[in-house]
C-alpha cells in the first residue's frame, strides 16, 4: 500500500484535461475534446488494454466469460457493500451478483448487450409530471424523483448523434410527430430515423410479436447497437454486419458489429498527438484547492503514486467509482437520509425486472442470436394504466423477448416446474435432456423510482486494495416495485400463453428484498445527479460540478432516477456535456449555470 504523502508523490507534467476512466463516457469526452480543440487530454484507465477482434474471438468461451466473468473488474481489488436500510449492517458483495462492471479500456461498453433505447420524454420532468397527474397522497412515501433540468427535446439532437455514431438498428414509431405502426409508437418524437433498419425477426420474438398484436399491444423491434448491415458512421468508422454468433453480453464482438468504445472511439483517438492514454493507473483522489480542481492522484501499475496536475478534471469512471471518488476526495456535500440535507450520494437507483420462463415442445436453437435481437412492447413503459394505478402502481416497464444466444451452461436444466423431485441424478438428467434447448424468456426492463432511503456513502468498515473505503449502497425494494413487477408479470404470462408455450411461469423478480446476488443489469445510477439547482443536485445540466467549475462528472451517476437500459442516454448526455465544455467553457472558463 503506497503511503499517502502528497509532498513525496512525484508531480507529473501538467495536462489541460485529465479524464478518469477509459469507457464510453471517458473516451467520448476525450474524442470530442481532442478533435475539436488543441487541448492535451490524458485518460487514466485502471484496467488493461481492450482486446482486438481476433482477441475477442478467442474469448468465445462461456465458462471464462459468462460464468467466471473474466472481462469484469477484479472484485478482490474493489467492490461495494450493501445493506437494506440504515438500521442494518452492510456486507460486501464478495462475488459478482446484481451488476457486473467491465474492466479495462472500453469498460462495460465492450461487453454490453447492445440494447440502445431512448428514455421517454416524461422521464426528464418526472417530478413535475407526477405532481401534475397524481394527488401527492397517492404517491409513495419518501418518493424522491426529480426533474433532470433539461427536457427530452433538448437532448433529442444528441440522441440522434449517439444513434448515428453507433449505427443503431431499429424502426421508428414516432418520426417528427407522425406515428408509425410497427415501431414503438409510445416513444418520444425523433427528428431523424434510425440510421439502419431493424434486424429481421427470429422465431421466438416472432411468436411474441404475433401474440402481442392479438392482445392489443404494439410490438416493435428492440433498437440494437449491433449492425444489421454494414455501416460507415459520421466519424468515418466502417463496421460489418452481425454474424449472430450469440457471444455478445459479457463478450467483446469478434467481428466489430457491436458498438464498442474500442472500435468506435479508440481508432480516432490514437492518431491524435494531443491524446494520451495510460492503463493500469488507479485514481485515488481528486485534488482540490480553493474551490478549484488541481488534478488527481493515482497509483500506477508498479505501485508508485503520482500527482497529475490538470486544468480540467473529468470523472468518467462509472456510477460507483465517480461517487466514491467525490466522497473520498471530500468534494461536495454528502447526503444525509435522516435530515434530507446534502446531495452527494442521493437518488441511488438500479432497475426493476420481472422474468418469465417459457418452454416449448420443440428445439429453438437458442444458442444463436445477437445481443438486442428481439421484440418489445412499450404500452406500459411509462405511467401505469389507470386500473393498475388504482392498485398502487405508478410506472411500468418495457416487456420483451430476445434471442441473444444462450450457451449450454446457462440453458441446461431448464424445465417446467415440478418435472422432477431432485435436481441431480439420472431422472433429472433425462428430464434436462428432454427439455434442453426448448426454453425462452420474457423479461421486463422497468423504471426504478428514486426514494429518500436509497443512497450511497462510504463504508466505515471495508476498504479497497489501497485501504480507501468502499462505497456503501443502502438500497431496498418497496411495495411499489413489488406491485410494478406483479403488474408486468401478469402481462408476461398472458403473452406467454398466447405464444403457445407448453409451459410458462414467472421466475426472477424483485422479491421481498433487494438481493446483491441476483443479476439485475449493470445499470446502477445516481449519487452525483443532474438538476437545475445546486440545492438538489451535484452537477448542473452540463454535468459540471456546482461547486467546482473545472470538474465534470459524466455517466449514469448523473441520473435522478432510472428508466432502465441507460447506455444511449448516457452517451447522449456525454455529447451534450462535451458540446458545453468545448463551445462554452473552454472559451470562457467558469460556472456555466
Amino acid at each position, binding site marked *: 500500500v503506497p503511503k499517502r504523502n502528497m509532498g513525496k508523490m512525484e508531480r507529473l507534467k501538467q495536462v489541460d484535461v485529465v479524464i478518469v476512466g477509459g469507457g464510453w463516457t471517458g473516451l467520448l469526452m476525450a474524442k470530442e475534446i481532442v478533435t475539436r480543440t488543441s487541448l492535451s487530454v490524458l485518460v487514466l484507465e485502471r484496467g488493461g488494454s481492450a482486446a482486438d477482434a481476433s482477441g475477442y474471438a478467442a474469448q468465445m*468461451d462461456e465458462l471464462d466469460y459468462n460464468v*467466471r466473468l473474466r472481462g469484469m473488474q477484479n472484485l478482490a481489488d474493489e467492490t461495494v457493500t450493501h445493506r*437494506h436500510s440504515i438500521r442494518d449492517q452492510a456486507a460486501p458483495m464478495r462475488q459478482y451478483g446484481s451488476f457486473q462492471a467491465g474492466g479495462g479500456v472500453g469498460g462495460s461498453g465492450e461487453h454490453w448487450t447492445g440494447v440502445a433505447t431512448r428514455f421517454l420524454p416524461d422521464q426528464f420532468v418526472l417530478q413535475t409530471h407526477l405532481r401534475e397527474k397524481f394527488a401527492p397522497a397517492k404517491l409513495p412515501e419518501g418518493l424522491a424523483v426529480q426533474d433532470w433540468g433539461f427536457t427530452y427535446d433538448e437532448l433529442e439532437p444528441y440522441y440522434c448523434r449517439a444513434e448515428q455514431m453507433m449505427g443503431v438498428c431499429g424502426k421508428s414509431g414516432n418520426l417528427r410527430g407522425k406515428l408509425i405502426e410497427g415501431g414503438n409508437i409510445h416513444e418520444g418524437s425523433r427528428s431523424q430515423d434510425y440510421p439502419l433498419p431493424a434486424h429481421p425477426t427470429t422465431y421466438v420474438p416472432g411468436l411474441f410479436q404475433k401474440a402481442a398484436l392479438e392482445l392489443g399491444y404494439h410490438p416493435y423491434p428492440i433498437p440494437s447497437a449491433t449492425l444489421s448491415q454494414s455501416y460507415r458512421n459520421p466519424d468515418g468508422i466502417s463496421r460489418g454486419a452481425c454474424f449472430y*454468433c450469440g457471444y455478445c453480453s459479457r463478450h467483446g464482438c469478434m467481428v466489430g458489429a457491436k458498438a464498442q468504445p474500442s472500435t468506435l472511439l479508440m481508432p480516432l483517438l490514437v492518431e491524435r498527438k494531443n491524446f494520451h492514454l495510460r492503463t493500469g493507473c488507479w485514481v485515488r483522489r481528486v485534488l482540490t484547492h480553493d474551490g478549484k480542481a488541481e488534478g488527481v492522484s493515482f497509483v500506477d501499475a508498479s505501485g508508485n503514486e503520482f500527482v497529475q496536475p490538470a486544468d480540467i478534471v473529468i470523472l468518467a469512471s462509472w456510477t460507483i467509482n465517480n461517487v466514491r471518488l467525490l466522497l473520498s476526495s471530500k468534494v461536495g456535500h454528502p447526503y444525509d437520509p435522516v435530515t434530507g440535507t446534502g446531495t452527494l450520494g442521493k437518488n441511488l437507483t438500479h432497475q426493476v425486472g420481472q422474468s418469465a420462463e417459457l418452454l416449448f415442445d*420443440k428445439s429453438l*436453437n437458442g444458442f444463436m442470436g445477437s445481443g438486442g435481437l428481439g421484440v418489445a412492447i412499450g404500452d406500459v413503459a411509462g405511467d401505469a394504466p389507470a386500473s393498475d394505478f388504482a392498485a398502487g402502481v405508478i410506472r411500468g416497464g418495457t416487456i420483451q423477448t430476445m434471442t441473444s444466444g444462450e450457451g*449450454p451452461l446457462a440453458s441446461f436444466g431448464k424445465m417446467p416446474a415440478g418435472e422432477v423431485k431432485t435436481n441431480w441424478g439420472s431422472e433429472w*438428467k433425462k428430464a434436462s435432456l428432454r427439455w434442453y434447448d426448448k426454453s425462452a424468456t420474457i423479461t421486463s426492463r422497468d423504471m426504478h423510482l428514486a426514494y429518500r432511503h436509497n443512497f450511497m456513502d462510504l463504508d466505515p468498515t471495508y*476498504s479497497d486494495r489501497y485501504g480507501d473505503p468502499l462505497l456503501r449502497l443502502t438500497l431496498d425494494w418497496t411495495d411499489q416495485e413489488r406491485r410494478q413487477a406483479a403488474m408486468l408479470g401478469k402481462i408476461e404470462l398472458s403473452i406467454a400463453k398466447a405464444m403457445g408455450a407448453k409451459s410458462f411461469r414467472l421466475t426472477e423478480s424483485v422479491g421481498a428484498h433487494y438481493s*446483491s446476488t441476483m443479476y439485475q443489469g449493470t445499470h446502477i445510477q445516481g449519487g452525483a445527479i443532474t438538476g437545475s439547482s445546486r440545492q438538489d443536485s451535484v452537477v448542473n445540466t452540463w454535468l459540471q460540478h456546482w461547486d467546482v467549475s473545472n470538474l465534470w462528472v459524466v455517466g449514469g451517476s448523473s441520473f435522478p432516477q432510472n428508466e432502465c437500459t441507460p447506455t444511449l442516454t448516457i452517451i447522449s448526455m456525454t455529447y451534450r456535456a462535451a458540446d458545453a465544455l468545448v463551445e462554452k467553457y473552454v472559451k470562457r472558463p467558469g460556472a456555466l449555470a
Partner: protein
Amino acid sequence: MKRRDLLARTAIGFGGLLVYNVGSRNFVAGETTPTVSAGFRFFSSQEAAVIEAACDRIFPADDSGPGAREARVVVYIDRQLHGPFGNDRYRYTKEPFVDSVPEHGYQGKATPRDVYREGIQVLGSDFHTLDSAVQDERLRNIENTYFFRMLRTHTIQGMFSDPLHGGNSNMVGWQLVGYPGPLMSYRDQVFKTSVEPFRQKPVSLEQVIGSPVKGWEDE
C-alpha cells in the same frame, strides 16, 4: 439413418443403444469407463476418486448417454481448484467475515479449495468404493450444503464447458445435448421462420479459431 438425424435426436434418446465417440471408442450405456488417472494438479488420487464418483452420481451415464466420468468432469474441477478460482483470487476476501442476510450470498472465508477438502471429508474417503445406492444416500444427506451446490454446478460446467478447461472430453457433453460449439456465424440459420434443430458435429473454440486458447485456470 443419416448422421445428421442421429445427432439431431441425441437429446431425445433412442432407448438402449446410444453411440457416442469417447476417445477413439464408441460409448455404450452401461459400459464402465476406467477411472481417470491423469496427473492431478490439486487433488490427491484418492480425493479425485471420491469427487469423480460423486459427480458420476450427480450426472450418471445411463441409457440417455454418457455422464460425468466419460466427460472427465473431475479433471475440470481439479484444474479450476488449482487455478485462481480455487483460491479466490477474484473474490473480495477482506475481513471481517460476518454472517449476513441471504440476499448477500456466500459471505464465508473458506475458499473453494477449503470447501472441497471439507466436502470430501464429509463424503468419506471410501465414497468411491460404495454401492451407488449408498452413495446416493450420502449425497442426499448433504443436498442443501454449500459444498453440494458447488459440486453440482461444477459437474454441469465440467460436462458442458469448452474442452479447453479439461472436462467435456471429446465434446461428449456437447454431443449429448446437440450444442455445435462456438461457431462464428449463424447468418444462414437464425432467421428461419420454422425452427429446424441445428445439430452438427461440435467443434471446440481452439478448432474454430485455429490456435491454442489458455483458460483462466492456466494464467
